């Protein structure tokens, strides 16, 4: 016998994500989900961003990683509270993992939580984790074909950062094509060109981020 169902497969995850979103709103905490390939520069961007933001805001970081706590140690070195989630082979963070992690944070003292997702351009885009916005880092060494190969993550992101822009003279990265494809996928999205190593373009990104925080609150 055929039984009609009409249930979203991710409904359970989405319900927890909505609860988290309500909790963060109630506590007035701006949460963003930082995504990108392994090696795109997510942790480097986080380090550069935190160095500026900790001057004005109370921030905590949740680090998603398959097995290690190397990234968490880099953040810890900046004096920022950090919670490590090891997915033990899992390719993304889900809302339930974030729900567990925030239990260890003092939410009454925080202005912002940055969640660094597992390095991956596919799965993290599928799973809402209670964030106010998604941000994706694409480094120029990955190739300009990535937005069309992984459209969902670029479509869902409020901002895309083109990282390692200082390497443009040395790699065959067609920036115009990458930017055009991102704009087609996501006409409202913001694109920032940065280099975390050469410290290029970071001030514009950080100013924008502060603006987003202000608008949220």
């Amino acid at each position, binding site marked *: 016998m055929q039984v009609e*169902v009409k249930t979203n497969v991710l409904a359970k995850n989405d319900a927890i994500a909505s609860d988290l979103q309500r909790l963060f709103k109630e506590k007035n905490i701006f949460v963003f989900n930082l995504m990108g390939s392994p090696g795109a520069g997510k942790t480097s961007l986080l380090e550069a961003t935190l160095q500026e933001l900790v001057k004005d805001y109370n921030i905590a970081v949740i680090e998603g990683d398959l097995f290690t706590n190397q990234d968490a140690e880099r953040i810890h070195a900046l004096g920022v509270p950090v919670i490590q989630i090891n997915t033990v082979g899992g390719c993304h963070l889900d809302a339930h993992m974030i729900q567990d992690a925030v239990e260890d944070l003092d939410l009454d003292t925080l202005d912002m939580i940055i969640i660094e997702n597992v390095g991956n351009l596919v799965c993290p885009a599928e799973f809402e984790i209670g964030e106010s916005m998604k941000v994706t880092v694409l480094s120029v060494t990955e190739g300009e074909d990535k937005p069309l190969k992984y459209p969902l993550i670029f479509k869902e992101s409020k901002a895309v950062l083109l990282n390692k822009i200082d390497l443009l003279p040395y790699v065959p990265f067609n920036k115009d094509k990458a930017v055009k494809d991102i704009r087609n996928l996501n006409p409202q999205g913001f694109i920032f060109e940065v280099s975390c190593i050469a410290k290029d373009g970071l001030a514009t990104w950080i100013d924008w981020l502060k603006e987003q925080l202000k608008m949220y609150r």
Partner: protein
Amino acid sequence: MHEMSIAEGILDIALDTMRQNNGIIIHSVQLDLGLMSGVEPDALLFCWDAVVKGTAAEGSKIDIHTIPITGQCLDCDAVFDVQNYAFICPHCESKYINTIGGRELQVTSIDID
């Protein structure tokens, strides 16, 4: 590969539905899958065969119904097929587009006994 957690999610829904309807066996699951859902059909089918082992859904099939990417212009209301991932209205070139199809990941029905 998140298709494994997706397959587990589908199995949960299927088993819940079977119990609610006093069924004992699941023959097939019908799934709407948007072209931009981020789920790879072949990987999903592979994972499905693995997660159903030893359950009432062992040996069952997933029928995947692929849904194209459809946009609706918020300025001129035109509904259009999104080509080459360009979310720009082909009629008025507006960039304010609501994605009304293509993100589906929904169990629509289940065949049980």
